[in-house]
């Protein structure tokens, strides 16, 4: 469904990712783990068109998307919940949710809204409140709920568990499963490697801009070097 080939991208003089090959198949949850500054967010930004690929190719559903504008990529069915959640603080919770469906024209937006507020009941009680007044966890729920309002074929999640309490982390990961059951494919960037490897079908390890390891979630979870570097075991 998504294919990166020898992808190179960066900022000004910095080359943050240096030739990445990665693929995500329909219905999969694939995770990308790696330490701070490895280039995980940069990879997602390149897929969404926020930064341009310097070389290499990005293909989605067989079509090259690396020359498209971000809003065109969203229209093809790729939504991203960016690092830091990207909610609009001055807009109300319900306005944030309807922006998720901005590029849709169908009649089912209302029923999707009902589905999202069912998934995150806390949002339902706060629909008319400015999104900036939500707690961190609620903002993360809003960001994920809003991405669902786009009915993405592929959902890119950048560290959805960051800064959340263990209970909320559980909620977020079970939501990731629910989203997949509802038919979306997921590319999940995480620092929380143990949780990520548990939900993921397949995983990639990114180190200083290159993929150093790949395999099934279970394989990487038992790999010695991964256990040392990312699962905090000695």
């Amino acid at each position, binding site marked *: 469904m998504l294919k990166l080939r020898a992808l190179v991208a960066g900022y000004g003089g910095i080359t943050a990712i240096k030739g990445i090959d990665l693929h995500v198949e329909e219905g999969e949850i694939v995770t990308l783990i790696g330490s701070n500054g490895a280039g995980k967010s940069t990879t997602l930004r390149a897929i*969404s*068109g*926020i930064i341009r690929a310097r070389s290499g190719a990005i293909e989605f559903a067989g079509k090259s998307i690396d020359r498209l*504008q*971000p*809003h065109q990529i*969203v*229209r093809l069915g790729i*939504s*991203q919940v*960016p690092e*830091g959640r*990207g*909610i*609009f*603080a*001055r*807009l109300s919770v319900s*306005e944030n949710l*309807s*922006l*998720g469906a*901005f*590029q849709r024209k169908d009649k089912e937006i209302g029923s999707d809204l009902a589905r999202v507020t069912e998934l995150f009941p806390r949002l339902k009680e706060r629909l008319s409140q400015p999104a*900036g007044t939500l707690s961190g966890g609620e903002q993360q729920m809003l960001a994920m709920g*809003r991405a669902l309002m*786009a009915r993405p074929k592929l959902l890119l999640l950048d560290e959805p568990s960051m800064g959340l309490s263990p209970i909320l982390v559980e909620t977020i990961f079970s939501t990731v499963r629910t989203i997949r059951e509802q038919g979306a494919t997921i590319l999940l960037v995480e620092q929380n490697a143990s949780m990520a490897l548990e939900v993921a079908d397949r995983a990639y390890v990114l180190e200083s801009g290159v993929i150093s390891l790949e395999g099934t979630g279970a394989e990487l979870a038992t790999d010695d070097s991964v256990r040392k570097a990312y699962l905090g075991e000695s």
Partner: protein
Amino acid sequence: MIAPLFLTGAEFWADQTVNGLTTGSIYALIALGYTMVYGVLQLINFAHGEVFMIGAFAGYGVLVGMGGDDLTGVMVALAIVLALLAAAVASAATSVTIERIAYRPLRNAPRLAPLISAIGVSVFLSHLVDDGFLGGQSKFYPLIFPNGGISLGPLSVSYLQMFLMGSSLLMMAALYWVVQRTGAGRAIRAVAESRTNASLMGIDVNRAIVITFVLGAIMAGFAGVLYGLFLSSIRGSMGFIPGVKAFTAAVLGGIGSIPGAVVGGYGLGLAETLGREVLNEIPGVNLPNEWKDVVAFSVLVLILIFRPTGIFKQKETKRA
């Protein structure tokens, strides 16, 4: 202490208040364009005064084309409506062209670059009209608006003033509705918070920016015709002073804030009108009309010193 100020009588002050609200309406309409463009681009669109001027000329063209001073009856109403429409279209077209040519190519340049570009466009347009087309002459709006008005106690308001204030309020209410209640308005507010995050919603950021310029320009073009109907004399450089004052009004209200631009516009209109008259109450002082400008720009300097964020402070948002 206050009493001596009212020596001149209630009627006089009621008149001045109405005058202040009348000019305030025009400032508020123009200020909306400054504040909305600043909201999405953090750019002071210094050519906005010329967008207002173009609107005034487009309206003038329609009024004269339809018969000018010979217009009577319903034709006056029809001509004014068409003049307002033509002004909105001409101003919007001007503003979109300016955005495309002078600002968009500089989107990622240092912040000073688009500002200088804006000043360049402003000077170019006002001189193009003044020297290029009019040979330094002014044009005069036909005086077709029905005379007369109503009086209520000390308060008397002409029909023209009522039309000016009433139609301005309607336009502002319409703008508020567009910004708060439509998808395009939501997109504009999202882009104002973060261009990157807005693009991740599937919003075409350039389109949202163009719509912002169009909405601001419609308000300015409308104001241009009202100005012409009220003061009659128009010229290429007419946008400069109202432009800078509307900018002052936007800063007074808190630049980036839409309610702020409206409050700032009326506030500045009242302050400059009443301010001069209050000073004139001091024995031996008799300030000419131009002192309104002195009062208005003193307001600008004072806000910049004491409350640069204006009345309606905008929360800082992350730029991405």
